């Protein structure tokens, strides 16, 4: 079986589901002959024709809005935003309509849409091409926000997202689009949404991250193992709704926790995770939960993006702060 990258796993999932379900249509800017600027829809138009894989005029709000009408009349639209940085014109349609159609009509109509967007920094792109604003979407009632972190999870979670009866924001960490390959059987098996994945087991500390920064988080865990510290690494994958119970289960063992994300710190999802840990597991904690995140700054142009993005050193510093809390002069 061929080894494939994360972006190839996205293509594989789209192709599988288009074969299986004639209601699935794929559309966006440059997704047709060009196969998407990252090649996520490579070859789909050739296979499924221009009636099912469509280049749209250049208007992101339109991509967001037509998906609502398509879905309300029984299709399974998958709309691509070329970069998360260009999704904001569509926010009105996503927030005001996609997320509410089922509720507004008391279940008469629904909105089974997938909005895909590459997101995150680290590929030396121009301004507006590198942000991580997943928390904006996770705040909106009625949405699901899903972020894969490996080829297998991209495949299984995207299938689940397309089959889900409600709208899903599917954010693809483009820094690791081609960072690793993996055997991903094209068997149409979806992975569960709303479930946390345990990527590495350990009993000394819980590290929580998603998307591209899991790469550095796993490297940090590897390094800690060399120092005799066994870190458990969790990937929530679905950021809304959040599987807090799996996080608490891990904390029962480790009692210490670090949350790592690229997004700015204030109001980021790390804050939500810490708040829920406080609500459900305050007594378990041996130390305050640490956050290792992007700064509360504008995402810098690429010469300085490495100083903005959380790195292994930063994660290890967070881990030490959590481990040393009692010993190191905490109260």
């Amino acid at each position: 079986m061929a080894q494939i990258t994360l972006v190839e796993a996205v293509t594989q999932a789209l192709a599988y589901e288009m074969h299986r379900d004639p209601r699935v249509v794929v559309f966006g800017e440059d997704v047709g002959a060009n196969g998407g600027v990252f090649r996520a829809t490579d070859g789909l138009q050739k296979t499924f024709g221009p009636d099912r894989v469509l280049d749209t005029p250049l208007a992101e709000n339109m991509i967001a809005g037509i998906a609502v009408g398509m879905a309300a009349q029984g299709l399974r639209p998958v709309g691509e935003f070329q970069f998360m940085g260009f999704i904001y014109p569509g926010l009105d349609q996503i927030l005001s309509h996609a997320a509410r159609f089922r509720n507004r009509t008391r279940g008469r109509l629904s909105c089974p849409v997938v909005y895909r967007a590459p997101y995150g920094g680290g590929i030396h792109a121009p301004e507006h091409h590198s942000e991580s604003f997943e928390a904006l979407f996770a705040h909106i009632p009625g949405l699901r926000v899903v972020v894969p972190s490996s080829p297998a999870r991209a495949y299984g979670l995207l299938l689940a997202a397309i089959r889900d009866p409600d709208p899903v924001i599917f954010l693809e960490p483009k820094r690791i689009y081609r960072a690793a390959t993996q055997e991903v059987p094209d068997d149409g098996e979806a992975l569960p949404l709303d479930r946390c994945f345990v990527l590495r087991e350990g009993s000394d500390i819980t590290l929580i991250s998603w998307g591209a920064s899991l790469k550095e988080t796993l490297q940090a865990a590897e390094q800690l193992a060399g120092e005799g510290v066994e870190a458990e690494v969790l990937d929530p994958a679905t950021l809304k709704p959040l599987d807090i119970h799996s996080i608490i289960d891990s904390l029962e063992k480790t009692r210490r926790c670090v949350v790592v994300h690229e997004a700015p710190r204030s109001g980021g999802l790390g804050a939500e995770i810490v708040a829920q840990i406080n609500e459900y597991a305050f007594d378990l904690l041996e130390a305050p939960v640490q956050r290792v995140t992007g700064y509360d700054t504008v995402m810098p142009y690429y010469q300085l993006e490495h100083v903005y993005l959380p790195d292994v050193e930063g994660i290890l510093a967070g881990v030490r702060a959590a481990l040393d809390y009692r010993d190191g002069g905490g109260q």
Partner: protein
Amino acid sequence: MHKPRMHLLASFDIARLQYLDEQGRATQELPDFATPDTLLALYRQMVLARLVDDRAVKLQRTGQLGTYPSSLGQEAIGVGTGGALAKDDVYCPYYRETGALLERGVEIKEILAIWGGDERGQNFRHAPCDLPLAIPIATQFLHAAGVAFALKYQQKQLHKPPRVAVASGGDGATSRGDFFEAINLAGVWRLPLVVVINNNQWAISVPRSAQTAAKTIAQKAIAVGIPGLQVDGNDVIAVRAAVADAVARARSGEGPTLIEATCYRLCDHTTADDAGRYQPREEVEAAWRREPVARLGKYLRSEGLWSDEQEEELRRELAEVMERALRAFADTPRDKPTAIFDHLYAELPEAFLEQYEQLGRLAEGRD
């Protein structure tokens, strides 16, 4: 200075359609659908729409309804549009559409429920595919383009019969990107979409002249390569004819149409507004002389199809219809508190179960 020579690349005309003038006199031979029965039915629905609006405003004034947007003055556009669609076409309305909703089979008590603060009103029992009223301006045009794509796709790929999407909106909505993006896409993808603009001259307090320098809204169609025309929106026959023609062309694969229907908003924007602050009195008085219900009434009388006795009988009958709807609205028990979770997702995610139960506990005995 020397004026360079240039070649004419494109030019355009915008046509306006009218069958009945302000005095209710036919200006040309009426279309085939305009049989006495159809005209009487259109008249009845316009009178009913005006009655619903009138009673809804009174309910709001007495604290029994929330903010309400009357469509007084737009009856011909709503009724003319609604009646031009086939049952399984999909209507995508904006919020000021009493006449069209009634034509689509939406119940009066559903309309009252929506403005009475109850989402269940949007669960149109007799128009199951129609979209709910869109409150944000112009957003429904994009939904309608998506609907039109879905209908065309289902016809082509899944061998379903041809259906059409029809969207409505106000003159102010044509200033938004959503409007332009929707008609632009409909042109490129040749979608079975009809967009009807209720040009009632006002977007709350901002007059039509302050929305665009274009002479007509219909000509916005030219920029995106689709047909556009203007109709006299106080003439229900013209509206019905123009929409029916556009729907027929969309159904036969000939693509989208933009229809601008002109009328005058003879009421406040909503019950929270006071149009007296900005609508010139003389202009409103002049607009009342063009209004659509009296116009068709005059025509029917001149043709011997209508009398004072029939008018009185109709008003009695509709007053009863309205009374029944008001009672049904008043008798509808409030939804249970946890209903706010029930249709958030197809199935409530585990993560929100605790909030759901918390609300259930807190609300117990309170309602």
